[in-house]
């Protein structure tokens, strides 16, 4: 071990190496102990990390390139309290650890990550993990914080008690990690841990008394609980200030997304348009130029424009998740959740659905009760995901005047946007209540929520989130959106018509295949105040919601009447206010996302649920849009 390492590691005498090679190492530990942060350090990958329990819900494998061991596979696992499976995510960890997970190799060694701030409790997991009998390295994470706060642990004594090497690390700062390659180097012949004593397996009381004894014998001094967290909570969970600040945070996020994000997006849009114009002379005039610029580029850039605003939203979600505020928000909202009959644990998946429903549906694995989990899965797509944002932004910018109230602190556009978010939330809660009082009725399961200590979010972790999100967004634009816009352009220019003379030309947009299809579905959407172009947009957006915007870009770009116009202006010409508001509310409720349907199918193991969900949400969206359109027409004439 290098001399720079301040944290001592105790390693038992090395038995002679044998030929049996180590291949797979599993990372295991209680929830929120920092496994994924360590995983990222050891592999150089970017697994999502945040400051609340239950971020990781499935196994993830990576090569340990971060410590120069390209030959080893590291498996990151969801956090567990014990080896008794109590929820889906815990079952994943336990199955992988015991080598019962199909498709995942059985681990040859274990790295047990424990949060040294709460070591006594965390040691309860050490007993069953050591009992599995795999070579184990125990890493005490966050020791820098523990020592700062006056805590102490004798890791040598702990290593003797546990019969396994122990090292103190800080995964966030990357200190003490040289214990890992050292351990791996010495594990060429699989020496199982030999603890002095172990409790009766499966008995929580016995395990706790064992853990308490071990921590006492090893001189563990728990750090003083931080006053900081309690002081912050005195304000953030105050009976009056708490909910008020919650509201201010939510409104503030959207105000910033609009007031700072809009100019950024406009600038980005201009840049994209200029790029298109720059390329125009390089392409031969004719169908190719039209396909590339008026078709594909116009469609893609109309979605790409929203990248700055989406990244801003993700920056805020990241800050809320990394500081530990998310768990407090769950606490504040618990009253609402229980009125609907939803499990208190459902709140965190629902909150993360504001980013995207796919990881949110996977996060429901932390809910133990099957029926509660199903209800949460079914209502998650109502939450306003970031893919709806481009549609909302486009329509709001086109139809809602930029009026500000309260000296510029609250704009009408923000209010409309908040209203749409609220509509989604109310849709989710009402559906949850319907489900929980009928087909998914179950006895109430207790709500046990751990409030993590507040932490300063690191720039690194926030940066990683934004990079990942930008990647997902760009990949989506380069695949789904590109192919849809190309297909649309082709369909909008077929069948070719024979004009006077000998030339062939594209038909009028209304006579093209896409135009005929649009007119065919027109009767179904006319009552909502949508024209046939919007209808085509709705059809294409079943793939993914943001496709709506690119379709509009392509269709209005292909129509000579609106070709020269900005998309917002074109829409403004072509739709009524009632139709625009109806379209927004349609998007608030409808389930237009094939990825979500695929993940629901995977998690529920049948196509029945996504099909029911799709139809239910479609009917609701149609009904709500109908009401909104007619109400707006009645009020504003």
């Amino acid at each position, binding site marked *: 071990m290098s001399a720079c390492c301040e944290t001592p590691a105790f390693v038992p005498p090395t038995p002679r190496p044998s030929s049996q090679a180590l291949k797979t190492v599993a990372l295991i530990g209680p929830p929120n102990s920092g496994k994924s942060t360590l995983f990222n350090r050891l592999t150089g990958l970017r697994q999502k990390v945040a400051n609340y329990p239950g971020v990781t819900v499935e196994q993830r494998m990576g090569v340990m390139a971060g410590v120069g061991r390209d030959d080893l596979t590291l498996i990151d696992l969801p956090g567990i*309290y014990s080896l008794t499976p109590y929820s889906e995510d815990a079952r994943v960890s336990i199955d992988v650890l015991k080598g019962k997970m199909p498709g995942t190799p059985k681990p040859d060694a274990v790295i047990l990550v424990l949060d040294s701030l709460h070591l006594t409790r965390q040691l309860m997991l050490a007993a069953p993990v050591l009992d599995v009998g795999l070579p184990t390295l125990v890493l005490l994470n966050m020791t820098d914080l523990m020592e700062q706060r006056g805590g102490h642990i004798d890791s040598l004594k702990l290593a003797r008690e546990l019969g396994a090497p122990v090292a103190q690390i800080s995964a966030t700062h990357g200190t003490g990690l040289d214990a890992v390659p050292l351990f791996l180097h010495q594990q060429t012949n699989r020496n199982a841990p030999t603890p002095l004593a172990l409790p009766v397996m499966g008995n929580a*009381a016995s395990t*706790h008394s064992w853990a308490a004894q071990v*921590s006492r014998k090893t001189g563990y001094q728990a750090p003083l609980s931080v006053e900081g*967290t309690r002081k912050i909570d005195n304000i953030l969970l105050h009976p009056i200030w708490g909910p008020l600040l919650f509201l201010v945070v939510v409104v503030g996020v959207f105000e910033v997304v609009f007031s700072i994000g809009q100019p950024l997006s406009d600038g980005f849009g201009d840049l994209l348009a200029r790029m298109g114009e720059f390329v125009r002379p390089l392409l031969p005039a004719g169908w190719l130029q039209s396909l590339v610029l008026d078709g594909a580029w116009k469609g893609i850039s109309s979605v790409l424009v929203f990248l700055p605003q989406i990244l801003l939203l993700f920056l805020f979600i990241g800050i809320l998740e990394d500081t530990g505020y998310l768990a407090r928000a769950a606490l504040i909202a618990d009253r609402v959740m*229980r009125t609907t009959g939803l499990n208190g644990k459902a709140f965190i998946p629902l909150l993360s659905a504001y980013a995207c429903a796919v990881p949110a549906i996977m996060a429901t694995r932390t809910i133990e009760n099957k029926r509660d989990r199903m209800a949460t899965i079914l209502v998650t797509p109502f939450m306003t995901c970031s893919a709806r944002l481009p549609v909302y932004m486009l329509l709001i910018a086109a139809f809602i005047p930029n009026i500000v109230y309260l000296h510029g602190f609250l704009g009408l556009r923000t209010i409309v946007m908040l209203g749409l978010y609220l509509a989604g939330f109310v849709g989710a809660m009402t559906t949850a209540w319907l489900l929980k009082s009928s087909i998914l009725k179950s006895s109430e399961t207790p*709500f046990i929520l751990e409030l993590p200590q507040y932490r300063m979010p690191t720039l690194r972790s926030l940066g990683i989130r934004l990079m990942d999100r930008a990647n997902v967004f760009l990949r989506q634009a380069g695949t789904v959106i590109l192919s849809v816009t190309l297909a649309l352009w082709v369909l909008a220019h077929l069948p070719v018509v024979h004009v006077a003379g000998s030339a062939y030309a594209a038909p009028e947009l209304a006579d093209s295949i896409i135009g005929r299809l649009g007119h065919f579905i027109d009767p179904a959407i006319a009552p909502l105040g949508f024209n046939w172009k919007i209808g085509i947009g709705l059809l294409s957006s079943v793939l993914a919601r943001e496709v709506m915007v690119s379709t509009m870009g392509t269709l209005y770009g292909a129509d000579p009447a609106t070709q020269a116009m900005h998309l917002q202006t074109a829409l403004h010409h072509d739709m009524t206010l009632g139709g625009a508001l109806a379209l927004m509310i349609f998007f608030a409720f409808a389930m237009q996302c094939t990825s979500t349907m695929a993940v629901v199918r995977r998690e529920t193991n049948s196509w029945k649920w996504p099909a029911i969900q799709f139809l239910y949400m479609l009917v609701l969206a149609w009904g709500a849009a109908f009401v909104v359109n007619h109400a707006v027409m009645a009020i504003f004439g």
Partner: protein
Amino acid sequence: MQIVPQEHLNPGVCVSDHNGRILNYDQTGRSFRLLLSKRPKGDRQVSMLSELKIGQTAVLVALELPESVQNHLMHMGFVPNALVTALRRAPAGDPTVFAIDGMEIALRHETAEAIRVRPATPDDLNVRLPNTGESIEDEAPELFEVVR
């Protein structure tokens, strides 16, 4: 009516039945459970975690919850003899945040209602460090509990 051996008939002592539920005995050996409304006033009133006032600390006695929930809570530090402090209530009045084992954990009223506690005596506060908890192997607190 149950007849209890003579040595168990000390006034003020309660014994648990085989389910771990605490029974009270009067001088003649009749067992009874005190109704909530008839419990004497004062510290003795605190017998369930849900009754703790904010800032009040108690000693955990037993969990009367389904086994899976009980196991989960025990792994989060809710073990017999641990010190629990009610820290704050959520803005809506429920759930309540409890400090246990150096952690902050929120429980809804109906869960806290099924966790039996006794008032902490000065001894408890001195002997037990709030963050480490104590070994329970020599004692069986769920079987025999002295009430002041």
